[in-house]
């Protein structure tokens, strides 16, 4: 099992989610983070001019997937739906998972995903 952690633009969430659902993913979690990266910051407007906010709102999406699923396909789906081509599109990280348990049923392993 792997956990895919990806940092994406907030406005891309619905597209990514739909894309993943079409690929058979059933579970995922998302939370709001602020990020730093090659995107230099967002300009906001104050009382008399602009100022730059370095920390940019991003969403972190976590999806644990079973090894039965083709991970590259999933990654491609995310990229397709989250890409704009401009700095700030975000990154995907793959993390190993040792075990997974469903709280409701106490079942363990890949099959709960």
């Amino acid at each position, binding site marked *: 099992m792997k956990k895919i952690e990806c940092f994406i633009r907030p406005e891309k969430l619905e597209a990514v989610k739909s894309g993943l659902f079409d690929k058979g993913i059933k579970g995922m979690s998302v939370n709001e983070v602020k990020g730093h990266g090659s995107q230099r910051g967002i*300009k906001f*407007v*104050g*009382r*008399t*001019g*602009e*100022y*730059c*906010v370095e920390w940019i709102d991003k969403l972190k999406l976590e999806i644990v997937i079973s090894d039965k699923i083709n991970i590259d396909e999933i990654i491609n789906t995310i990229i397709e739906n989250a890409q704009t081509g401009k700095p700030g599109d975000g990154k995907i990280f793959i993390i190993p998972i040792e075990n997974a348990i469903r709280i409701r049923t106490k079942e363990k392993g890949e099959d709960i995903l």
Partner: protein
Amino acid sequence: MAGADIAFVLICTGLVFIMTPGLAFFYGGLLRKKNIINMMAMCFVSISIVTVAWFIIGYSFAFAPDIGGGFIGGFNFLGLFGVGTDAYPVYSDAIPHLLYMVFQLMFAIITVAIIASPFAERVNFKAFMIFISIWLVIVYSPIAHWVWGDGGWLKALGALDFAGGTVVHINVGFASLAIALVIGPRKGYQKEPMEPSNIPYVLLGMGLLWIGWFGFNGGSALAANSTAVLAMVNTHIAASTSGLIWMIIEYYKTGKFSVLGLATGGLAGLVAITPAAGYVQPWAALIIGAVVAAICYGALTWRSKSKIDESLDAWAVHGWGGIWGAIATGIFASVGATSLITGNSGQVWTQTVGVIVTIVYTFVVTWVIAKVIDKFMGLRASEEEEYVGIDISIHGEKV
């Protein structure tokens, strides 16, 4: 005494009251999340402290008969002694003296609350409370006396100040500047971004300030009459115009329509029309509003690039808005007063004298008070308190 006038001034008093909670939200929303409650606390505690101080001595210093020289009132109204439900014709024969007192009290409260600006995000709250008690008595009360008090010298000179451009706005603007210089900038000022954390709060505050200002300027007629109506119409027109112009200026600079600009501009318009409200025609209010947007925009831009962390720009908005308003009154006054446009060119000069003396007095005396308190107990929170945020470290609360 007249029921209509009592009803009117009483409700206007309520409206001026609501400006202070309004300011708490206006100011609070402009700060970082960790200092919002503190800002609101400064505004709300101003209500309590100014009320008590006004009761004890502030009202007397401002409005008791002059003790000579037109500088300050005496001790006659100490503890509101003799301030009762009869009219006090020196100020108005239409309303009870107590009503005049409480209406004026609300002005004192909002003025003191505005002064929270340079303390933002770094205040030693205890020192703030002591500061405002003293400031009310030796800065606000005397200036109020000069302009409106029985025997005040600026009044005698013929300076026009309908609802407090000098007493409230210029005064608080330059006092804030003095404090900012004494207290020094926030840690990280101009290095870290200090973006506004709650713009809807700013707008809520703006709404409350605006309606409150109808009471502030309208009520200053002290009667439900044509002057009150004129003052209220002018107030509304100046604020609307100024907000729009400010937003447009900023649009040309940044390409965005900033609602903070709209609100700040609206506030500048409210400030500028204050001394003129009952004296000018609506078309003049429009001009006053349009011009003040440019002036305060300039002042704020300059300030925010300078080293001076007068954090919520009481100086740029109230100070400069007040100056322009005072001068503009000397230019445009035509209702119940004369001015440049009606051939009395001396009025501009009289207004200028009022402006300059007020600036000098408030700046110097405020600076001294701030320095002394700073010496004895520190105006600022500790560095660690400032880092963690004043809300948690001094109030034990957080949003």
